[in-house]
C-alpha cells in the first residue's frame, strides 16, 4: 500500500448547487449582521469615505470645488505641518523607547513574588491612563507653571534655578514627553506584566540550573519570549504618538512656536479653528498613511523571529 491515489481530496470541489444554496442569505443572517453593518456604514464607512473625498476638495467663500492633489502638495510647503512631523519623529524616537523600557522594568518589578500589595501597585501605576483629561490638565498646569508651579517651588527650595517648563521650546518638549510617559507607562506595564505572567516559573528554574544569572535569564530567556507583547506595546504606542492630541492640547496648545505641535493637533486647528476642512482631511489621511507604513515596518523588522 505504498502508492495510493487519494480518494478524498483535501479541498472538496465546489458543488454549484450547494454553493448557491449556501450563498442565499437568510433573514437570520441579516438579523445578526444587520445592526453591526448599519452602524459600521453610518458611523465608520461613510465618514471615512466623506473625509477621503473631502481631502481632494477646497471650500472657498462657501463654494466647494475639486482641487485634486492640491491639499496634499500644500503640506510639503507648510512650515507648521513640517514642524509637527519633526516633533512627532522626535517624540517617537525618544519617548516610545523610554516609556517601553520603563514599563518593562516596572512589569518585572510588579511580577516579583517578594513584592507586597501587588494589586495596589498595579492599580496605582495604571491609574494615570484612566484619569480624565481635565484632571490631568489641571494637575500638570499646577506642577509646571513657571511662576509658583510646584516643580519650580521644589527646585527653588533645593537652590536650583526655576525652569520655564512650558514656555521654552526645549523644556516644553521635555515636559510633553515626561507627561506622556507618566500617563502611559503604567498602562504598558500592565500589558507587559500579563505577558510575563504567561511565562512559567520553570523557565526561570531551567535557566538558573543552566547557570544563568537573573540579568541573563531576563535578556536571553524571558524577554525574547515577550517579543510579541513588546511589539504590541511598541505599535500601539507608536500609533498613539502619531495621533497625539490630548497631552499637547492641554499643556501647551502646540506652542511655543510650534515646538510641541503634532499633526492631529494641527489638523484640529486647521479644520475646526481655521475652517479649512479639505486641508484638515488631507492631513488626516497622511497621518493614516504614515501610521500604516510605520506599523508595517515595525511588524516586518521587529515582529519576525530571528532565523536560527
Amino acid at each position, binding site marked *: 500500500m505504498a502508492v495510493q491515489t487519494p480518494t478524498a481530496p483535501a479541498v472538496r470541489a465546489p458543488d454549484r448547487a450547494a454553493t448557491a444554496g449556501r450563498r442565499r442569505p437568510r433573514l437570520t443572517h441579516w438579523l445578526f449582521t444587520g445592526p453591526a453593518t448599519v452602524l459600521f456604514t453610518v458611523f465608520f464607512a461613510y465618514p471615512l469615505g*466623506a473625509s477621503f473625498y473631502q481631502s481632494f476638495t477646497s*471650500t472657498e467663500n*462657501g463654494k466647494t470645488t475639486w482641487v485634486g492633489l492640491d491639499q496634499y502638495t500644500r503640506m510639503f510647503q507648510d512650515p507648521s505641518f513640517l514642524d509637527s512631523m519633526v516633533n512627532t519623529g522626535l517624540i517617537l524616537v525618544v519617548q516610545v523607547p523610554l516609556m517601553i523600557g520603563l514599563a518593562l522594568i516596572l512589569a518585572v518589578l510588579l511580577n516579583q513574588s517578594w513584592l507586597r500589595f501587588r494589586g495596589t501597585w498595579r492599580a496605582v501605576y495604571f491609574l494615570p491612563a484612566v484619569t480624565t483629561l481635565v484632571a490631568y490638565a489641571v494637575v500638570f498646569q499646577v506642577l509646571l507653571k513657571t511662576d509658583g508651579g510646584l516643580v519650580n517651588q521644589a527646585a527653588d527650595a533645593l537652590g536650583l534655578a526655576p525652569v520655564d517648563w*512650558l514656555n521654552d521650546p526645549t523644556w516644553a518638549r521635555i515636559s510633553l514627553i515626561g507627561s506622556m510617559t507618566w500617563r502611559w507607562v503604567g498602562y504598558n506595564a500592565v500589558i507587559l506584566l500579563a505577558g510575563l505572567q504567561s511565562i512559567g516559573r520553570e523557565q526561570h528554574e531551567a535557566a538558573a540550573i543552566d547557570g544563568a544569572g537573573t540579568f541573563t535569564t531576563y535578556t536571553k530567556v524571558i524577554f525574547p519570549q515577550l517579543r510579541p507583547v513588546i511589539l504590541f506595546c511598541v505599535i500601539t504606542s507608536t500609533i498613539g504618538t502619531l495621533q497625539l492630541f490630548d497631552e499637547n492640547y492641554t499643556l*501647551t496648545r502646540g*506652542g*511655543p512656536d510650534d515646538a510641541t505641535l503634532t499633526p492631529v493637533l494641527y489638523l484640529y486647528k486647521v479644520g*475646526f479653528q481655521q475652517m479649512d476642512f479639505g486641508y484638515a482631511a488631507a492631513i488626516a489621511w497622511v497621518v493614516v498613511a504614515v501610521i500604516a507604513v510605520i506599523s508595517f515596518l515595525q511588524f516586518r523588522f521587529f515582529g519576525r523571529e530571528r532565523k536560527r
Partner: protein
Amino acid sequence: MRRELTRRALLAGTGAAALSAVTGCATGGVTNREAVRLAPGATTPVKGAITVWSWDSAAVALTRLAKKFTARNPGTRISVVDIGYENAADKMTVGLRADTGLADVVTVDGPKMPGYIGNFPQGMHDLTPLVKPFTGDFDRAAWQTVTSEEGRVFALPWDIGPLALYYRRDLFEKAGVDAASLKTWDDYVKAGVALKKKTGVKLLIMDPAEDSFFACLLQQQGQRHFKGGKVALATPEAVRALELLKAIGDRGLIRWERGWDGQVTATKEGKSATLPTAAWWSGTLTAEMPELKGKFGVVPLPAFEPGGARTSNQGGSTLCIPAQSKNPRLAWAFIKFLLTDKDNQVSMLKREGLFPAYLPALKDPYLNAPQAYYGGQRAWKVFADLAPHIPPVEYNKDGAKAGDIAQKALTGAVLRGNDPKRQLRDSAEQLAGATGRETVAG
C-alpha cells in the same frame, strides 16, 4: 422567479448609495446654495419658540431680558442656553458645516465673525435690509466685524471691548509712578522696570497660546492681519508691535498664564501691576475680586507715538441667526429688542458689565457716575470716551489662520528669542502660502 438579494448586489447597492451620499454631502449641503435673506414685511405678531446660545454673564443678561420680551410678546418662548465660551466657536463651526444643530440665535465672538461670514456665506441669515435703520447707531469698528467683504450684514454687534490700561493704584504709589504719565509704550516699559524693582511685581499677564494682545497692538495702529486683502504681518506697524512685546518680555516683565482662569487667578493674587485689556474685564474684577475694591484705576492705553490712538479693541460679541433657524422672525425680533433699545443696553452694562456697541447707550448718564470699585473714578467714562476712537480695521475669512500664525510669531520672538523682523517676514510668507494671498510690500 424570485429575485434573490445576493450579498454582492447588496454591497454594490449600499456602496453606490454611500458614494452618492458622500458626494452629495460634500458638494451640496450647506455650501453651494443661495444665501437666505431676511426681509422686513410681515407685521403679524411673532410667536413660537426659539433657543438662544450664549455664555457667562452674557447668558445671564439674555435670560433676564428674555423674560421681559416674552411678557411683552405673548405666545413666544425663549430658552437661553449657556454653552460656555470655550466650546462656543467649535460648536458654531461644526453646526455651520453640518448645517444642523445650531440654535436660532447664536452669540459669536466679534473678531471671529468675519471668519464665519467668509467661510459660510450661506450659513447665516443675511440681515442687510433689516439693519438698515440702525447702521449709524453702532460703533464703526464693531460694525466692520459683522459686515461681509461685499457689504452684507449678517449679525448685530452686541458689546465691544475698548481697550484701556487697568492698573493697581497701591503698587503704582509704592513705586512712585504716576499712571497718568504713561503716554507712550516706551513710558510703559520704563514704568514696568521701576515697578518690578520697587515692588517685585511683573508688569502684565499674557497667555502664550493667544495672539489677542498682539492683534490689539496691530489694531491700535489701524490694521489687523490683512490690508487690502493682502497679508500685512510684516508691515512696520507689525514689527513695532512685536518689538514692543519682545522688549517687555526681555526685561522679565511678563507673567505668563494660560487660559482665562490663569489670568483671573494671577490678577486676584496681585501678580501683575497692570493689565491692558477691554472694558468687559471690569465685570470680572467686580464679580470675582470684590476684596480688591479701591485698588484699581483705569487710564487710556499708552500710544505708539505721542498723539497716536489711545485705545484698541479686544473681543466683544455679536448676535446672528443661523440659516437653519425655523423661526428667524422671532429670532430677529428678540435681537432687535435686545440690542437696539437704549434701556436694555444700559441695563446690561449696569448689571452684567457688557459694554454696548450701541452708541446711543453710551450717552446715558450712568456712564458718567463715579464708581466705588475704582476708588471713585469715573471708569466707564474712560471707556465711553475711548470707544468712538477704536480704529476700524479690515477683516476677512482667514482671520483664524492669521491668528494662529501670528501667535506662533509672538512666541517665536518673545519666548524663543527670534528677531521680530525676520520672524514676521517668515510668518507673513507662511500666511500668504496658506491663504493664497499676496504680502503687503514692506
